[in-house]
């Protein structure tokens, strides 16, 4: 700085970015201290979407938690469903049938694809690439068609049940998936052309929001953001759940841990997830989709109207809830943003005593100031997009 800058009266500009600001998606507030365009200091305020998830869970039965998990990471609700169901099953000690495992893998991966689409689309839109945004919204729409076919809902699916899934794969699902993936791959290629080699886009995201691997671990990064730093930690590989150990897929890793690496990791994960879905659809065995434990499983509608025991069990599970044995467990799945952990405490009653979610984007958001300090205002945009903070999950 020259002498004139010292002599002149100058002060930092303190500016409030959000919570109702286009980049903050309505659920986070940045308090910025700026020197010109450079960020001197940043405070992050979250909680604008705190909806009392845990309190609601503690006041409902174990089954009634399922719809609330949909709305944690509302971009990939099926993964949350699966994560919660697996956690309760671990608490009870259920092993679900093979076919159910495959269906859950398919559902999770479809959800992951749509999550990454949304994330990249939003990221592209916010750096000004509106066309790329709409291409991926269109691709996501196609994937949602599949999800709708599977469970009848587009966004909040409520598809997985403790000890199984709501319904079997519909007829023609495999063919439809093939069609959809064909179109999705084409749109993926379009977006790839629009962004990956676009000099302006690369300039915006490369070397921005860098997180070195050791610090990323210390800050609790997981998921694509950690893999972008070069650490191949993926729950699907490290603690294989369901049938991920029988699937052939790769875990893409980045080198630098900047926003461009995060973008590339997500782009590649879309492809890998498609591979998993295709493999799962090939290998899926026939058989039941629910465990044969009437005190835990959700009775099928057909049985309820034809069998008296089913009706009784249905009545009991709905009114009192299932009753897992007292104890506590922690179970993690690979969410779209990272490790999605459920810590459940049961006191033996029909309601969860404690249902804690380990939100993957919570520590990521906490590290925002670290990643953008010293950068420009404009750097907040891609960084915040690439950490993919989802209000429902971060604030719960």
């Amino acid at each position, binding site marked *: 700085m020259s002498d004139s800058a010292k002599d002149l009266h100058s002060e930092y500009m303190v500016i409030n970015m959000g919570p109702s600001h286009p980049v903050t998606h309505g659920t986070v507030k940045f308090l910025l201290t700026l020197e010109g365009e450079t960020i001197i200091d940043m405070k992050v305020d979250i909680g604008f979407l705190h909806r009392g998830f*845990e309190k609601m869970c503690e006041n409902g039965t174990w089954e009634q938690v399922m719809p609330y998990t949909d709305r944690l990471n509302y971009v990939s609700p099926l993964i949350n469903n699966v994560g919660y169901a697996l956690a309760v099953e671990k608490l009870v000690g259920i092993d679900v049938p093979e076919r159910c495992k495959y269906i859950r893998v398919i559902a999770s991966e479809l959800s992951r694809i749509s999550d990454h689409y949304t994330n990249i689309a939003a990221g592209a839109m916010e750096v000004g690439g509106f066309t790329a945004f709409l291409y991926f919204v269109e691709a996501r729409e196609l994937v949602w068609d599949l999800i709708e076919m599977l469970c009848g809902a587009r966004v909040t699916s409520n598809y997985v049940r403790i000890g199984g899934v709501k319904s079997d794969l519909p007829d023609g699902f495999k063919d439809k998936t093939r069609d959809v993936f064909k179109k999705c791959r084409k749109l993926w290629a379009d977006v790839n052309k629009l962004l990956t080699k676009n000099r302006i886009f690369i300039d915006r995201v490369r070397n921005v929001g860098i997180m070195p691997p050791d610090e990323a671990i210390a800050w609790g990064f*997981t998921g694509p953001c950690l893999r972008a730093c070069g650490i191949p930690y993926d729950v699907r590989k490290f603690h294989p759940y369901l049938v991920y150990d029988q699937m052939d897929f790769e875990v893409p890793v980045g080198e630098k841990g900047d926003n461009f690496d995060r973008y590339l990791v997500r782009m590649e994960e879309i492809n890998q997830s498609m591979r998993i879905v295709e493999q799962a659809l090939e290998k899926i065995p026939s058989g039941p989709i629910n465990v044969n434990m009437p005190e835990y499983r959700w009775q099928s509608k057909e049985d309820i109207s034809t069998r008296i025991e089913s009706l009784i069990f249905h009545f009991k599970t709905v009114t009192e809830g299932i009753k897992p044995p007292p104890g506590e467990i*922690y179970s993690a799945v690979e969410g779209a943003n990272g490790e999605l952990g459920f*810590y459940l405490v049961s006191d033996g009653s029909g309601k969860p005593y404690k249902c*804690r979610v380990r939100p993957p984007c*919570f*520590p990521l958001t906490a590290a925002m100031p670290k990643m953008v300090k010293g950068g420009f205002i404009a750097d907040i945009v891609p960084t915040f997009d690439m950490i993919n903070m989802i209000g429902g999950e971060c604030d719960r």
Partner: protein
Amino acid sequence: MEANITINKLKARFAESIVDAHSYRGDDTAIVKKEELLDIFIFLRDDKELLYNFMMDLTVVDYLGKEPRFEVVYHLYSLAYNRRVRIKTRVSESECSVDSIVSIWPSANWFEREAFDLYGIVFKGHPNLSRILLYDSFQGHPLRKDYPIKKRQPQIGPNNN
């Protein structure tokens, strides 16, 4: 037994600090005294055979009616050995404070703020222990079992409890 290496090492090193340990459904759990929490965590993080470098989760469970009332639960993960452990420490209502572990894992910063916000546990030595999910004018700690679920404290607008 390989699975219990963490517990065994902890027991060998901090014999009198470990109140209890169990391994329910494969989850290794140690309940420790809160006085030696920081030393235990530094040991877990730095020991060559443990290397718990991830502080995955921090939460609190409110056992209303029991004494001590609260349990602070830490979930750690070791990338090098692909191992998880749960450390718990008990905190009474009258003296509900534990040492902050932000100096060991920066990721604990927000988790501790959240625990403070929702359960009112004070983390001693935390750089900025303030409310995070709720607003400053909020009275009480909503996830405590004695907080009524529908007790609203609006900042603006009608209070239709």
